[in-house]
């Protein structure tokens, strides 16, 4: 994490234009003496390790700095955006699991069957779709052509606004579907593979020998055990969703973390981009730690080492 913060910080240092250059172009009255004073104030020109250390010091105190683009404390911008992204990611996750798991179970229950092959083909299709194009097509179909759902315009979901709950859900539906399809494809493949791997285990033969009906064997024995590896995948996916939502958020103008970091990078808003990127990294690392932990908890055979 510390290494990452250095890397992110240095990358930002190489971004086009520094804040002072922009101020100079924005205000022709600044004299060269002012420029020197301002550069001193912002600490530009000092070596990067010192600047990095200062920045970390402020970070620990909860001072994320000031966003030039939005003219507010970065914390006030990042937190609501994080909430929006979390909502979108959760909805997408729910959709992906809701579609992926049942289909994966059906496919894995009878490998090689017609159902299995149809579902496998479907999962390929889902994984090959470019997210942003799917988003565009959904907009073209549901917003432009059928005029059922809004393409964008989701405002602050956390504060009370005119639309009410139904309106919020309408805004959520298309982006969540766009983001969820890739995940659904993944879950189908992993669930199917886990089911087939588990079906070789001797405990299943025991269950069948006891006289359990085939469906009972599948539902109570096979699925429960096959879910284990999928839980790990899901935890990893959650991390990927948080940062992967960037494209979807841009297409649907969703006010989340991904769009925010994109805007910050493009508008070279130094402090904001830095915080948003660091947060995305933190979430990804956290998700993979969670995945390890969940695996250890669910399967006592694996001791978390």
């Amino acid at each position, binding site marked *: 994490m510390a290494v990452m913060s250095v890397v992110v910080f240095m990358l930002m240092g190489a971004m086009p234009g520094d804040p002072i250059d922009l101020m100079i172009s924005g205000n022709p009255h600044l004299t060269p003496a002012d420029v020197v004073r301002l550069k001193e104030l912002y600490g530009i020109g000092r070596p990067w390790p010192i600047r990095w250390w200062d920045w970390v010091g402020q970070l620990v105190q909860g001072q994320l700095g000031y966003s030039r683009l939005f003219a507010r404390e970065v914390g006030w911008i990042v937190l609501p955006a994080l909430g929006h992204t979390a909502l979108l990611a959760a909805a997408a996750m729910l959709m992906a699991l809701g579609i992926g798991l049942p289909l994966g179970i059906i496919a894995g229950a009878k490998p090689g069957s017609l159902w299995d092959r149809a579902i496998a083909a479907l999962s390929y299709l889902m994984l090959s779709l470019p997210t*942003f194009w799917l988003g*565009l097509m959904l907009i073209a179909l549901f917003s432009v052509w059928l005029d059922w759902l809004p393409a964008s315009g989701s405002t602050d979901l956390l504060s009370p606004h005119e639309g009410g709950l139904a309106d919020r859900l309408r805004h959520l539906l298309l982006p969540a579907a766009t983001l969820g399809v890739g995940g659904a494809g993944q879950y189908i493949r992993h669930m199917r593979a886990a089911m087939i791997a588990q079906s070789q285990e001797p405990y299943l033969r025991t269950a069948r020998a006891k006289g359990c009906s085939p469906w009972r064997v599948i539902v109570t024995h096979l699925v429960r055990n096959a879910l284990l590896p999928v839980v790990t995948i899901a935890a990893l996916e959650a991390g990927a969703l948080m940062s992967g939502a960037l494209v979807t958020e841009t297409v649907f103008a969703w006010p989340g973390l991904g769009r925010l970091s994109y805007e910050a990078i493009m508008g070279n808003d130094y402090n904001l981009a830095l915080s948003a990127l660091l947060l995305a990294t933190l979430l990804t690392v956290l998700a993979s730690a969670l995945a390890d932990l969940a695996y250890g908890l669910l399967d006592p055979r694996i001791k978390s080492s």
Partner: protein
Amino acid sequence: MKVKIALALLVLIALPVLLSPWLAQDPSAIDLAGRLIAPSAAHWLGSDELGRDELARLLAGGRVSLAVAVITSALAAVLGGLIGLASGWWGGWKDAALMRLTDGIIALPLLPLLIVLAALDPLRLGVPVQLATSEGFAIARLIVIIALVGWTTIARLVRAQTLSLKARDHVRAAIALGVSPVRLVIRHILPYVTSPLLVAATTSMGGIILTESALSFLGLGVRPPVASWGNMLSGAMDLVWSAPLLALWPGIAIFLTVFAISLLGDGLNEI
């Protein structure tokens, strides 16, 4: 069967794309009188916001997108192959360090990182102005940054192969005979690693096409007027209310290519 379908699809896509300079119309011929016209005999897929032939642009964009995918995956394969070979062959702390690096890159949020890399100002990194503003530079940069984060899977695969090969009799015999390490790796390990490496490199092209198109879509990859499937979509996004069909074709091209590649990879793995 899977391999055959996949190859047929790929040939079907690649052939017109490769032959497009001799078959299709000029992809950059602007016709402001004939903007956004519907598919017709003159323009099979219609024309775009500047009156350029959509089919010609699609094929020209395909040349760029496919070239980027092939070169990037080759670069990533070389990089990952070298790192994997070195890691597996050396073992010990060097192996541990290289594998932590690999894990580290896998743990990073990929897309935001790529966007930062793509948004870096080349002038600040000491690239001369003329080079930095040339058309090829944006494409070259795209290739390099995707390859820089894309080598990890291949490195892991090659490392695992190298480790298992090290224990094989023919390698141990060669070690006992005192063959030099470089010759040993090239003559006795590399040939056995090549075929899984090629399969992995081929499969990685699907992901690369998706990444390239996403970056170009965001305006950070291949930049207009050079067409790529990704940046054609970003042009079409602004027009989705008036000409939704324009957004259809590049997406289908990306989708079919990625689909064929993943089918091919899956088929090859089953053999």
